[in-house]
């Protein structure tokens, strides 16, 4: 195994109803340090399930996932420790509505990393400044727009200093005019060298920011290559069909 590999996925399957429904049907993939992997595909192709398997929000029925050299699918592995190193951003933001923005961001670092509240707040304010939301630190999530919520969700995950960021359709629930501000934050993150796995329908983003694009359909990886060749010269018929519809 390459030292550079941060997530190594071997033949994972996710079956429901005793195998009648195969959400994932044997996925092999690797994510390298500093890489931006974009997962695209039609809805129901299993791309979100794949992403959610990476931090075991969905437990794969079969196969192994190795994260930073640890087999996290091993029942003895402490997934909570590994999840601290994998930030996740959801389609519906999932901010905690009963806490202010700053509390949303500092809760996990204070409780899990043992950082002092003062220090955690300082770090959170730095991150808020970077996404131009320092003035909303004491607002509640219900007072924010969708784009603001998602930017907060991103920096909330960053507060844990993760090694990988997982994005599950981060712009799908946003009004069109707010998509840009979220993608900008993600681009900035990518340029800073963050390892990212992004499930998205934003083909422009995939093309511009992705180092590698994975096309999934029916629970399988159909095609995987750099964005340039997958978008201009896809080799599989299934990929061509899909791209013809979305581009």
């Amino acid at each position, binding site marked *: 195994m390459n030292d550079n590999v941060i997530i190594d996925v071997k033949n994972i399957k996710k079956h429901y109803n005793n195998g009648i429904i195969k959400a994932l049907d044997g996925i092999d993939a690797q994510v390298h340090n500093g890489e931006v992997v974009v997962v695209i595909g039609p809805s129901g192709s299993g791309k979100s399930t794949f992403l959610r398997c990476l931090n075991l929000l969905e437990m794969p029925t079969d196969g192994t996932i190795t994260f930073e050299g640890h087999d996290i699918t091993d029942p003895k592995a402490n997934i909570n420790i590994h*999840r601290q190193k994998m930030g*996740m951003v959801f389609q519906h933001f999932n901010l*905690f509505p009963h806490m202010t923005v700053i509390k949303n961001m500092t809760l996990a670092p204070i*409780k899990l990393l043992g950082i002092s509240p003062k220090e955690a707040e300082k770090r959170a304010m730095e991150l808020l400044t970077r996404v131009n939301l320092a003035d909303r630190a004491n607002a*509640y999530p*219900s007072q924010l727009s969708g784009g603001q919520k998602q930017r907060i969700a991103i920096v909330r995950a960053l507060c844990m200093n993760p090694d990988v960021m997982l994005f599950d359709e981060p712009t799908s629930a946003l009004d069109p005019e707010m998509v840009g501000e979220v993608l900008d934050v993600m681009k900035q993150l990518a340029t800073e060298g963050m390892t990212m796995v992004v499930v998205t329908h934003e083909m422009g983003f995939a093309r511009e920011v992705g180092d590698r694009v994975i096309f999934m359909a029916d629970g399988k990886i159909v095609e995987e290559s750099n964005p340039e060749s997958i978008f201009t010269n896809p080799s599989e018929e299934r990929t061509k069909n899909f791209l013809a519809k979305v581009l």
Partner: protein
Amino acid sequence: MADWQANITNWFVAFQDRFINNFIVDERWRYLWDGLGVTLKVTFFALFLGIIIGSVIAIIRASHDKTIKEMPKSFSRILLIFFNKICKIYLTIVRGTPVVVQLLIMVFVIMSSSDPVFAAIITFGINSGAYVAEIVRSGIMSIEPGQFEAGRSLGFNYIQTMRYIILPQALKNVLPALANEFIVLLKETSVAGYAAIQDLTKGGNIILGRTFDAFFPLITVAIIYLLLVMLFTWLVGKLERRLRSSER
């Protein structure tokens, strides 16, 4: 003096006499005052106990319902199924029998050697816990799964996610239902007299037994309960508004 004036004067004199006879003679007001103390004591501690029992059961039941399908076969799975069964049996028994019967059994059978007031606290606590459990469980189930996933994805374990993220939201959502349960509990303690406990209602009853005047002691008891409930409703309303306003 006209007849009607004399009637009113007589009525007032009689009223005054009855008031003095019911409350002042032999310091009879003490029955109400001490009874009120017992009622509040039983209600308060039973509420406290009920919330603890209810929350624990709600967490077990909700955890079971939410996770059992996905859980791999393991010891903790068996444990969860076992505890869930116990909780269900508890809910069935407590909700399926009258609280008076429970109280009598507790005071005269199970805890016959301890202080009846203490036994009443335990009884009403266990009884209320069953209702609180279902209220809190509905609160937990109403929180969208995304909240749970967000907590877990940050690295919180199951218990921490419950404690910091799910329960604060769930309890806030069910506050009106909990307040209702508290009001029911307060009034339900009025059956404590069956087990020879001198609560507020029993106090009124004792005065009635001494003076053979039903009107004064019973109406007074009713008014005291009413005032307590109104006061509490007002307090909860204030708390609720404060919790809500922080979100808007």
